[in-house]
């Protein structure tokens, strides 16, 4: 069997894990390049890079992705030649590794998209060197002594004033079954301080014990409860202060999200509340069988409670989709380096608010637009070092990536301290292109000009920026996500772009329909079927319109009439020969929603309408179509219920109309 087939079920795991290793590679390379000085740390980083490459090579080989395997192998071999003693000599260029990592990313991307595997032979041959001596990637000494890196960390900890604590952990079968194993203990200790060393030793029989040396900050104590988990220690040795754990490399663009246990526990708690509500319901019903009926107000109360609990749960689950933007920022930093090197610029990247969380889907969709802004900033915004010096600025340009959360929105900024936007020049160019422009356009007007389709990118085509998406696409992509773009710029000082995005996002496939001149959307999951009905098939039974459908009777709800929408410019009227009907509701009791026309399938971003003043039965949300039009989203379930009520009312009152809600967008 082909390796690819044998391991088919593990492909999600493969891609997710490769993403992690690529993120590690990017991070380690950036760290090595920026402060390669501290020797023992540089060695650790090189070892980390080797490990990441080994794993990428091994996994790729297992699934039969020969090109990724070849690149990883080539990079490994190159690194062994470049770092024979296990560290990279100061001043050595790591460009090959950066290039190779980017190539690996592209290889994986192609595989994910089911495209043809990339050609990598050119890269592999180019970086091939004379066969290197196999490097001593030597294991650190076992018990007793500290390695060079560990010694440095100990010094740093003592200098900070941390106290150094030794503990011993003896694992037991019960403990391990409960989840208290050496890795769990390591995690716990990392949260409280910095682990300097872990050493195993044998105990009589088959037993082992692990000796941990930890640097703990002031006020960080070890809970006595841990002694019940197999941990033992004596009173600490002296000194205060603290610091935290190595961050887990986040999974980048993939279909998988990592969820922290606390979040899951919270969700479980909410589910628990629902279970309780339901069992109360159960009690009430059981009570009613003993005669006496079910107390309505108790039912109302439970119903209201469950509605609230479901809403909380829904929100909680949506929050599971949140990931920190830091990962995306790291990828942007990588791109900055590429572009800067290519353009001969020196750029320092600063980040703020990397822990700010955002819906994973939003992060993935806005990565390209943000990368465009970043590339622009480096290619056009930041000046060449000589130019900067002449202007009295530091040689190194500064690019700030900042994220902050405010309520239900997240704000992301890309700011540079470059030459800023020259309003006069932009205005002149705009006028030359025939655009109407004020004499002294302000930042908002300048942004409008820049976002005009076809405005500047064609003229300033260069390999880095001219990637085919212009500012207009940046803005429309952001808008489609429910976000907004703004800009502030000062000539000579720099430019800042700010993006505001919603915290969570729901995207569904929807069927667009025309009703009385309005376009509305119906989420596909709500549709059972779409049928075409001839006007003369419609029969009136007890003042309700129905059609024959699959051997049953399908009640019709004419949405144009329901929403009291006027015919928009002769688009058709009740006198139409045939019209589409959306079959919704349950299979047992479906309802047909009659519309004027079908207008295509679209993926839409759902923006719930929560304002009580605009609550209309049958409309639950809205979306913005790509061209800027706002479109209401029909709530099929609510319409079905509305239909029932209207039918009953009609049957009772013998045809006289009951109240009709109005809807539509003016």
């Amino acid at each position, binding site marked *: 069997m082909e390796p690819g087939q044998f391991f088919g079920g593990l492909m999600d795991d493969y891609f997710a894990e490769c993403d992690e290793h690529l993120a590690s590679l990017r991070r380690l390379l950036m760290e090595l390049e920026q402060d390669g000085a501290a020797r023992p740390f540089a060695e650790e980083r090189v070892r980390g890079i080797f490990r990441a490459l080994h794993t990428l090579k091994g996994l790729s*080989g297992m699934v039969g992705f020969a090109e990724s395997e070849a690149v990883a192998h080539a990079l490994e071999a190159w690194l062994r030649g470049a770092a024979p003693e296990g560290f990279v000599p100061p001043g050595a260029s790591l460009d090959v590794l950066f290039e190779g990592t980017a190539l690996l990313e592209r290889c994986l991307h192609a595989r994910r998209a089911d495209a043809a595997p990339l050609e990598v032979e050119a890269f592999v041959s180019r970086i091939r060197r004379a066969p290197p001596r196999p490097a001593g990637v030597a294991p650190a000494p076992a018990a007793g002594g500290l390695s060079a890196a560990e010694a440095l960390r100990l010094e740093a900890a003592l200098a900070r004033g941390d106290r150094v604590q030794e503990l011993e952990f003896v694992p037991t079968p019960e403990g391990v079954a409960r989840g208290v194993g*050496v*890795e769990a203990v390591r995690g716990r200790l990392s949260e409280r301080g910095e682990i300097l060393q872990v050493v*195993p030793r044998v105990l009589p029989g088959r037993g082992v014990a692990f000796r941990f040396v930890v640097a703990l900050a002031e006020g960080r104590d070890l809970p006595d409860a841990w002694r019940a988990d197999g941990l033992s220690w004596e009173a600490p040795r002296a000194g205060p202060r603290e610091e935290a754990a190595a961050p887990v490399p986040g999974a980048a663009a993939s279909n998988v999200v990592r969820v922290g246990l606390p979040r899951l526990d919270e969700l479980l708690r909410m589910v628990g509340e629902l279970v309780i509500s339901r069992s109360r319901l159960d009690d009430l019903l059981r009570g009613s069988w003993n005669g006496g009926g079910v107390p309505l107000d108790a039912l109302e109360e439970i119903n209201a409670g469950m509605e609230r609990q479901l809403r909380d749960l829904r929100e909680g689950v949506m929050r599971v989709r949140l990931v920190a933007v830091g990962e995306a920022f790291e990828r942007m930093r990588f791109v900055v380096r590429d572009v800067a090197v290519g353009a001969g610029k020196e750029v320092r990247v600063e980040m703020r608010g990397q822990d700010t969380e955002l819906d994973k889907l939003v992060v993935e969709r806005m990565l390209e637009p943000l990368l465009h802004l970043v590339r622009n900033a480096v290619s056009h915004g930041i000046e060449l070092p000589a130019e900067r010096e002449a202007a009295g600025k530091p040689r190194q340009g500064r690019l700030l990536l900042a994220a902050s959360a405010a309520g239900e929105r997240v704000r992301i900024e890309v700011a540079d301290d470059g030459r800023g936007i020259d309003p006069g020049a932009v205005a002149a160019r705009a006028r030359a292109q025939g655009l109407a422009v004020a004499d002294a356009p302000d930042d908002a007007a300048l942004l409008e000009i820049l976002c005009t389709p076809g405005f500047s990118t064609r003229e300033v085509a260069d390999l880095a920026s001219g990637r085919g998406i212009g500012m207009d696409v940046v803005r429309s992509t952001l808008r489609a996500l429910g976000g907004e773009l703004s800009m502030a710029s000062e000539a000579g000082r720099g430019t800042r772009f700010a993006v505001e995005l919603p915290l969570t996002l729901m995207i569904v496939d929807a069927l667009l329909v025309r009703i009385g001149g309005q376009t509305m959307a119906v989420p596909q999951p709500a549709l059972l079927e779409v049928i075409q009905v001839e006007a003369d098939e419609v029969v009136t039974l007890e003042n309700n319109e129905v059609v024959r459908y699959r051997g049953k009777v399908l009640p019709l709800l004419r949405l144009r009439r329901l929403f009291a929408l006027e015919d928009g410019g002769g688009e058709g009227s009740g006198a139409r020969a045939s019209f589409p009907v959306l079959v919704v509701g349950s299979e047992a009791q479906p309802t047909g929603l009659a519309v004027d026309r079908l207008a295509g399938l679209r993926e839409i971003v759902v923006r719930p309408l929560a304002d009580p003043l605009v609550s209309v039965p049958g409309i639950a949300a809205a979306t913005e179509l790509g061209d800027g039009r706002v479109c209401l989203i029909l709530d099929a379930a609510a319409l079905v219920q509305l239909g029932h009520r209207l039918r009953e009312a009609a049957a009772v009152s013998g045809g006289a109309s009951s109240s009709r809600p109005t809807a539509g967008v003016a």
Partner: protein
Amino acid sequence: MTNILVVDDSATMRRMVMAALRGLGDVGFHEAQSGLEAIERLSVHPVDLVLLDLNMPDMHGLEVLRFLRAHRAFEKLPVVVLTTRGDEESRAAALGEGATLYLTKPFAPGDLAPRVRELLERG
């Protein structure tokens, strides 16, 4: 039932190894993501054979091997080193530390099980 311990810091690789060994029949798996965890698992579970990756953070596979072979309870335990390093020096080093078998990754899915079975039958 045969108990096999799979040691590798890559979760995906562990799953691949287990998938490749499922054909062995009545076999149960324990997993470890690090050298420390491998040592721990060996001390709390009965294990008949270990598949050991070498390149792990914090404790290299060779260190794990060295530690095990120094411990009477584990000196005869069959250990299959499974690594991406195919060079002779690494092979010699691993066998020198007491590895029972030295295999390289990637391996064809059908190749692993027979070699492990052979080792188990021998023991």
